[in-house]
């Protein structure tokens, strides 16, 4: 188990390294951004570029880039949008908003999603099940900006229940901040509720028809006992890794939702860095998003092994 986890981790590092190298080369091949003349930061950025070896071979540049990261934790400084500011500090300052919005969304969606899924599975093939399943399908298909539009138009504009955009400032735990986050949280939640419902329903319907359920009923357990003790436990084998995966995912956030509700988070920073051609920022966030994507995959895979001892990780199928 540990060996498998280590192996996966090493593979992930290798993948990450290759992706970083490719992205780095592709970005450095682009002509560097013209710096504004006369700005006091220009000189700083120029000096930094010289130190980062902008005029030397790309592999040397990559070496210098990695060295700066590992020795000083230095990811470079923004050369366009936030001229002269440290990229890492910028990123860290944007992290709380993203994390909070996503955390709230997950906290909302996990219980609702699982409850709906269980309900649908228990009422399998009745109209309730069909209604929930179809609705789930519909909700998953519709892109999140449509929810954002509907919520913003009806709740924020028509009945003025919520503010239009997320509140500025850094008082992340105040009540007014919470209220102003709600539209964004809700637009994110629709999709994840539907996702959890679908997984739970699919898994539970399969478990409910398996033989040990019959055995549990035969030995005298009530339907409720059998479902809670045996079926639900087995169905958790799939759900819990999904939950772990989405907890890793909260760091990432959603680009579109953050843009629409102007959440001062990582997602909108990333979009801005792309549209504003701020390469150091773009490079750093690319590494960040790649790491998150890879990490959540690993967390999901490994947690299977921890939750269900029957699953032998790394063995040949």
């Amino acid at each position, binding site marked *: 188990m540990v060996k498998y986890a280590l192996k996966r981790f090493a593979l992930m590092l290798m993948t990450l390294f290759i992706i970083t190298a490719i992205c780095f080369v592709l*970005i450095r091949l682009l002509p560097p951004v013209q710096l504004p003349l006369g700005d006091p930061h220009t000189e700083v950025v120029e000096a930094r570029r010289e130190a980062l070896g902008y005029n030397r071979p790309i592999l040397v540049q990559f070496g210098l880039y990695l060295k700066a990261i590992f020795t000083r934790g230095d990811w470079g400084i923004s050369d366009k949008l936030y001229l002269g500011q440290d990229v890492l500090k910028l990123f860290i300052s944007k992290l709380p908003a993203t994390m909070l919005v996503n955390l709230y969304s997950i906290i909302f969606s996990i219980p609702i999603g699982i409850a709906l899924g269980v309900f649908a599975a228990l009422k399998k093939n009745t109209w309730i099940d069909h209604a929930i399943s179809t609705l789930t*399908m519909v909700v998953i298909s*519709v*892109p999140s900006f449509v929810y954002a539009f509907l919520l913003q138009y009806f709740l924020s504009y028509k009945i003025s229940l919520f503010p239009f955009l997320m509140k500025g400032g850094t008082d992340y735990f105040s009540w007014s901040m919470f209220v102003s986050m709600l539209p964004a949280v809700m637009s994110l939640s629709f999709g994840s509720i539907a996702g959890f419902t679908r997984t739970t329903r*699919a898994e539970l319907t399969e478990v409910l028809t398996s033989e040990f359920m019959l055995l549990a009923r035969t030995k005298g357990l009530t339907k409720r006992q059998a479902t809670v003790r045996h079926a639900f436990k087995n169905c958790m084998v799939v759900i819990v890794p999904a939950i772990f995966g989405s907890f890793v995912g909260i760091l990432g956030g959603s680009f579109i939702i953050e843009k629409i509700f102007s959440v001062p988070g990582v997602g909108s920073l990333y979009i801005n860095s792309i549209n504003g051609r701020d390469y150091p920022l773009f490079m750093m966030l690319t590494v960040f998003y790649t790491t998150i994507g890879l990490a959540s995959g690993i967390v999901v895979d490994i947690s299977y092994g921890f939750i269900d001892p029957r699953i032998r990780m790394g063995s040949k199928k």
Partner: protein
Amino acid sequence: MEKNTNEHITPDMFEFAQKDTFLHDEKLKTKARGYFADALLRFKKNKSSVVAAWIIGFLILFAIFSPIISPYSVNDKDVVYTNYPPYIPSIAEKNIGMFDGSYTLNSQNELQLASLRAIGQETGMDPVIEILETYETHQKFRGQDRVTYSYRVKVNSYFMEGVRTMVLSYEEYEKIQQFQNETGIQVLYPVVEKADIYVKAKDTSTATDNPNIWYQCEDLKGTPLLDADGNFIPAYSSNPDKTYGEYHSQRIASDPGTYIYNIAKSGSVQVRLCYYNYYIYKNGHEPSYVMGTDIMGRDLFCAIGTGARFSLIFAVVVSAINLTLGAIYGAIQGYYGGTIDMVLDRISDVLSGVPFIVVATLFQLHLAQKVGVLVSFLFAFVMTGWIGMAALTRKQFYRFKGQEYVLAAKTLGASDKRLMFKHIFPNSLGTIITSCVLVIPGVISSETSLTYLGIVNLSSVVGTCIGELMSQGQAAMTTSPHAMLFPSLFVSLLLISFNLFGNGLRDAFNPSTRGTEG
């Protein structure tokens, strides 16, 4: 020694064993049913998928025909009618509350209501459809009780534009006069001058330049000065020194024949024209927008159709390419296995680790200027899109490659290529077809997201795309929700029905997986 009877056998010695007897096996009464016919039969039983298929058909027809039906093209932009609500003149006349270009104005005071009435009186097209509510406000003013009224009014926003001041070249001015003579539609209206309007004010330099004030006013706020019967008093200018050229077209009803219809500017003329009629002059027909207009004054009906055409074609092309690439890649992986499989797996692992948005951005930055935005966008989708298909094909190959019939074919000397594509591949066809249908909504969804975020700008290549329309609609959401509503309705319907259709197809092709996923 027995005589060898086998030596001289002539053909006539043969006889049919069953010449007069019947075979007692019954013939098959039903037709043999193939794999696809079987799947189709199962598919038809799934009602929601059939409905979804119909909706997809309808949306495809919409995409094909809406740019053809619409009197406008994607490049027809109007500078004034931007983000205007749906309006069809023939339906608006019937006054059934649909397609009437209506917009609700909140809290209009009496002054504003009067100016709306004035527009109606001058142009003959009353912008006020209905006064929805009247509010009474009591106020103490210097010890006296004062009552003010405010209104909630439903107006026709196309008529509300009323008269605009525009500077035209003299040729244009002549052409409009000709148009008026031919059709009898009054485009040009007599010009007004501030001195004639604000008769009581000493200094008119601070007064607003509202072209829709054509009547005498009491003050600079624009309170109309009414005559004894309560009518507006026209303030049209009759000053012949200001005008240029001769006006030889129809005049408005109240014109005694002296009103001037332009003010001379150096090289051109400044006129007051009724925008609705000017629109008819320019386009040859009344404004008629089934879904309203977008932020650039384009017909949304046509724009959505154009965007939809692009989305659908793009998604199909991308899926086709990814399907082919992925199938070949997965076939090689699955068939050969071992080291080849491992190496190829690492490659696809690395590629799938890159977030799609990064791929799209890098392709845009590097390739867009060399091969065009569209091609580089396509490349970005192809770059990582085939991985899912490859994994699927690989799994299918692992399942089938050890089976006896493959071994038999191999023993008979079939080549690797033949084994892969003649013997194993057809078995995984069903799975691949269904996943192709499920890939299409995924492509449409990411394409819409990226154009929505503005990372890829396709408007110069394909006119417009749904994502762009939506992000423009989002910007003006409160005043003109239709600009966001129609594109999002289209995308949602398309994605929902494609997913339902794909799921139905998957259940039909693989009955064993039915009901396990959503």
